[in-house]
């Protein structure tokens, strides 16, 4: 015990936070990033910039929170972007081409997302498919339907009275971000305080053990896929409201970003370990990086490479500090 506490004294608070969880360490990195950004660029703390960061963050965050639930059971969904897009386009068409009540259309849009997620879940559990391969296939299907029904053209003319959902703020806080926080709170309650949430962790630790405990493993998996479909649709609809039109390009980088956000935030890819709140922190890291790159005026051709490098650095952060800690331990012992 003596050795342990000595080490804590020599190590800084940072390592202590990391020991607790990856998520808290990432939160500290995020704060450091924000501090650096605000020192280096005079525009970062500008209220309009912050609002735009929060607005971007809301979409990756929402999808990331959903995705983290799937990662917790050891699976993932690569069709989230296309589900978001298809739900948005169908909703837009109902609003513009059919002329239904826009609020009813939004509600129907969420139902579409839920159904697409349900389809994913049923295919994967009933046919016993690998989630990654199955959802690569399904994103092709949903994306294809998008192109068939729109012929590649955007659905414009979304009614003004719903656009505020994507565009406006309550006080200084953009509405999509508020919705994202609500989603997080609901998910956190489910994960920490309900049976279903506990079963999610059990399944992620061992599907076999979970089944032997009498947990209805497949039913819970289908529920999560449906929920992720619903959340994707919600993000898609908000994005349509934000743009004022439904476009086939919506959500293209959401699958990868949502997975990266979860992993950055300490959710394990193999299941059973992590906290959905980490996904929001991870999403914030990604969004802030992208914002900084723009503020610094990095050549637009270089932007994707630079943000990729930073993401790789962020996920390797925890293992790098593990390596450093091991080496330090070795040195202490040898002396």
């Amino acid at each position, binding site marked *: 015990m003596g050795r342990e506490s000595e080490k804590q004294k020599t190590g800084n608070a940072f390592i202590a936070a990391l020991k607790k969880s990856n998520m808290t360490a990432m939160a500290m990195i995020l704060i450091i990033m924000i501090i650096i950004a605000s020192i280096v660029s005079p525009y970062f703390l500008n209220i309009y910039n912050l609002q735009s960061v929060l607005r971007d963050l809301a979409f990756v965050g929402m999808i990331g929170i959903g995705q983290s639930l799937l990662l917790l059971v050891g699976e993932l969904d690569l069709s989230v972007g296309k589900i978001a897009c298809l739900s948005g386009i169908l909703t837009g068409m109902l609003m513009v081409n059919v002329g239904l009540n826009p609020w009813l259309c939004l509600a129907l849009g969420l139902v579409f997302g839920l159904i697409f997620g349900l389809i994913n879940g049923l295919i994967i559990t009933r046919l016993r498919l690998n989630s990654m391969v199955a959802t690569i296939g399904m994103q092709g299907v949903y994306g294809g339907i998008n192109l068939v029904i729109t012929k590649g053209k955007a659905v414009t003319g979304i009614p003004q009275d719903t656009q505020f959902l994507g565009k406006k703020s309550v006080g200084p806080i953009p509405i999509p971000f508020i919705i994202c926080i609500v989603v997080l709170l609901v998910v956190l309650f489910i994960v920490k305080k309900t*049976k279903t949430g506990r079963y999610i962790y059990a399944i992620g*630790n061992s599907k076999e053990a979970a089944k032997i405990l009498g947990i209805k493993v497949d039913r819970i998996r289908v529920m999560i896929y449906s929920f992720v479909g619903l959340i994707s649709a919600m993000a898609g609809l908000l994005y349509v409201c934000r743009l004022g039109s439904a476009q086939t390009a919506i959500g293209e980088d959401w699958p990868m970003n949502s997975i990266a956000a979860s992993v950055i935030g300490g959710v394990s890819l193999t299941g059973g370990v992590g906290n959905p709140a980490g996904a929001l922190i991870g999403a914030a890291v990604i969004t802030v990086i992208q914002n900084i790159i723009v503020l610094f005026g990095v050549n637009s051709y270089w932007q994707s490479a630079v943000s990729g490098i930073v993401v790789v650095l962020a996920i390797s952060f925890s293992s790098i500090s593990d390596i450093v800690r091991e080496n330090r331990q070795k040195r202490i012992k040898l002396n």
Partner: protein
Amino acid sequence: MNILEAKNITKMFPGVIALDSVDIAFELGEIHAIIGENGAGKSTLIKCLTGVYEPEEGEILIGGKNAMKNKNLFNKIAYVPQEIDLFGYMSVAENLFIPYEKSGIKGTVNQKELEERAISVLEKFSIPVKPGDLVKDISISSQQLLQIARATVHEDYEVLMLDEPTTSLTSKDTEILFDIVKKIKKENKAIIFISHKLEEIFQLADVITVFRNGKKVAYSELKDVDNNWVIRQMTGRELDQNEYFYSEKISDEVLLEVNNLTGEYFTDVSFSLRKGEILGFSGLVGAGRSELMQAIFGYLPVYEGSVKFSGTEWKLGDTNYSVKNGFIYLPEERKKQGILPELSIRDNISVAVLDELKQGISISAKKEDQLAKKVIDTYEVKTPGTDKKIQFLSGGNQQKVIIGRAMACKPKLLVFDEPTKGIDVGTKTEIYRLMKKLAEEEQIGIIMISSEMEEIKKCSNRIIAMYEGKISGEFDATADKQSILGSIIGMNSVE
């Protein structure tokens, strides 16, 4: 000559001294058994002797040279771990010679040459497989033997270290293994044999070292000592060898009635179990006992037949239904199917009874903690707290947590599948006593699957023997070992 020697080694972890000034030496041409309860320091010793851990104090000499200064010397120690770590999707021959550098294969790998070399090794070890077979397709017994064979093909080994090599071997394969080990001994190698099975140690080893609480407590030639001596040294107390654990309060009421059940690994099985009875299922690895129980439990499919539980028709194929109705299965594969490794002890227990831990619509952390503490107290789980991840407990303590979790579900029927696999003698007895208590006091019907004849005989009121998926005999507790053994290898059938 001492080929491997540990001099006064001490290894510490935060809060514990895992090895306390241990001296031990191994000679060429000798089989040296190491025994001790779980947590006695055996695994730490192995890791020090194979160079995985560096002890804080003392030195390790291999062939008289300090191995801590020259790590290459550890190549002379061939270690065979307890769990199978072969490559399932590679051939038998490839598995034998990986890593190729150590097996004297340079440059490109010639598949044909590998397979030719493999043939003689497979013959030596009497492993009934072809060099080209994929490892995932061969039997568990063959895999275990292959793993030992692999350790001996590397050219420069002098010490063969076997960590509980017989846990998944049938008795026939165990004999084959022992013959091979004796052959290797004649080749003038040192053999270290780690086992919980006293019978095997007396059958095979020349000398024995006993560990308790991180200290070496005894060393002797085996011809000078007996079972009781070993147990006394291990546990620090006398253990009643003649203690029996069958239930003495069996109800007349039939709890479980299985009629002509057929599934993939078992055919036309019928038996019944009364409340408060302990029914033993004996058989070889692969006789279909686990699969039968898993099918009744709803984990595996049933093709034909029916089951009655307390007189009513039992729904098959639904583990949720089974658990809700008081049927709990405690799996043999504790690490894969029993524990939730990344979760705390508390979460591992509470997950089975969340409905009872609710406060309003949410789960009460306080109630969860109370339940976990109760389980830890009742079943004497050794742990610093309820927050500890279960994967860091010893096997025996994990098993106690799992039994505690099962009991929290208030079961009527418990199936223990190899409940003492990898568990030391002292803890084994605790588990037997617990089973007896559950049967007598709670009137739970207990089915115990075990491959250890001694254990089955000590604990069961009745014993059913299975052979190749069929019931091959039924005995009461007084039956002699020979006739049970005959049934499990298919020598005599019922009628």
